[in-house]
């Protein structure tokens, strides 16, 4: 098929991959630091979207200008997601620091269920319309049939988030502490790093990216409900593993590869088996590269 079709699928996959990446980052950071598959991470994304919706609606009703609404709602979503991420770690994971890994996993599953049903009960089971926070950009008009303005927004935000995150990890004090903690917790503590604080910070940063993802995707597709975090969470997790869990560039790469895989498979073959293909692809990658695309191969010292 023609080149334009290919381009459209390419950008479609890129957008989808960017969203996966924003969620996958949280997964991979948390995994990197405490080796936990944080099943409840998708719920943080959902809570980010809900907070964004509630705050933006309230502010709109109060008659605020659109730009202020967008900024404030985005901020609120991030702040609250971070707060939930932080609290979640303190309640469900911190008391299990020395417990078997599976126990922590079950605790995470419990947390996921709890948060889903908490939103269900406190808000609604219905789908709620989410306002388009991103306007149609005039300047983008000639290309918008290939890549719509909101999609462009998602892509550019993702890029910005990636850059900020890279700076955070590579060049800041807390980033330095995160790198040390993820490789050797005890040694990190012996060098004066407050490990508990670093773990909390990781959850907070991961939650912030998830919240950004939640608000962006919600305003892009225009609706949210309490269950939206589940599938997105699973997909993002797959992406994180695909890229090599624990590795930040890996999460981004894995997410993009997953997004493209799904997009091209749907475009050129069939969306019926889209997920089947995505999973088979994952299995094949892991068979040949058991630690994911960019994962560190874990050579066991004998």
């Amino acid at each position, binding site marked *: 098929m023609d080149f334009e079709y290919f381009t459209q699928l390419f950008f479609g996959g890129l957008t989808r991959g960017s969203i996966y990446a924003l969620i996958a980052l949280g997964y991979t950071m948390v995994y990197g630091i405490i080796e936990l598959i944080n099943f409840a991470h998708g719920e943080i994304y959902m809570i980010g979207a809900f907070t964004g919706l509630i705050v933006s609606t309230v502010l709109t009703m109060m008659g605020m200008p659109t730009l202020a609404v967008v900024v404030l709602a985005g901020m609120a979503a991030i702040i609250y997601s971070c707060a939930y991420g932080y609290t979640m770690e303190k309640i469900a994971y911190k008391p299990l620091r020395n417990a078997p890994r599976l126990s922590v996993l079950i605790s995470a599953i419990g947390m996921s269920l709890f948060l889903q049903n908490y939103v269900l009960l406190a808000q609604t089971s219905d789908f709620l319309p989410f306002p388009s926070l991103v306007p149609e950009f005039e300047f983008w008009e000639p290309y918008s049939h290939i890549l719509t303005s909101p999609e462009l927004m998602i892509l550019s935000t993702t890029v910005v988030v990636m850059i900020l995150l890279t700076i955070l990890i590579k060049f800041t*004090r807390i980033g*330095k*502490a995160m*790198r*040390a903690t993820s*490789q*050797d917790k*005890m*040694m*990190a*503590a*012996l*060098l*004066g*790093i*407050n*490990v*508990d604080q670093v773990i909390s910070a990781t959850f907070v940063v991961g939650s912030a990216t998830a919240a950004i993802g939640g608000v962006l995707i919600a305003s892009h597709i225009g609706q949210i409900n309490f269950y939206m975090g589940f599938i997105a969470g699973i997909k993002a997790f797959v992406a994180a593993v695909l890229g090599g869990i624990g590795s930040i560039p890996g999460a981004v790469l894995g997410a993009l590869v997953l997004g493209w895989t799904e997009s091209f498979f749907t475009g050129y073959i069939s969306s019926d088996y889209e997920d089947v293909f995505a999973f088979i692809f994952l299995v094949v990658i892991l068979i040949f590269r058991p630690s994911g695309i960019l994962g*560190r191969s874990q050579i066991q010292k004998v």
Partner: protein
Amino acid sequence: MLKLKNVQAFYGNIQALKNISMDVKEGEIITLIGANGAGKSTTLMTICGIVPIRSGEILFEGQTINKMPPNKIVALGINQVPEGRHIFPYLTVMENLDMGTFLRNDKDGIKQDLDYIFTLFPRLAERRNQAGGTLSGGEQQMLAISRAIMTRPRLLLLDEPSLGLAPIITHQIFDIIKKINKDNKTTIFLVEQNANLALNVADRGYVMENGVITMTDTGKNLLANEDVKKAYLGI
């Protein structure tokens, strides 16, 4: 400088330290020897706040430190090179050293210390951009000690620096330990399996058995002690 008063600690359900009292004076090298599992490493971990203390008191320069989190203790100037070295495997040598400066802000001081380390261990300077995990055992031990020096400790705790090292490297490391003590007036608390070596460099020594301090004396006297000879020196 450091005082342990009737310290008790547990590892899980097992009591690892039973009423330990010790005393470290500024500027000296003291050593703690004993069999494997006697509680030597636990003593160090308890001082650093990694293993919680059950009862008793630890004082550093007159200040109680036993309720402090590890990072606060490090900030006071106590640093440990743990058993097994614990190099960050995916960070380069430079990055590993950089981690040691986590609590420091004095750029000039850091630079100075770095130069000092590279004169001590020219090998590390050669390998500054190599990942920590790819170094040989001896190099890793050098790096671990260097990283600890980068924190500018006033009290340096060393846990089994000779473990698994070739004889020639072991001797080098011990020479360096003496040098660090002399150059910087760093107080050194050495836990060692190789009692012979340790007692030779130490001003004073403690002997530990099953979580209890059974003997303390100067290094020389302990070397000459019949019981110590039999049990730890293999003579």
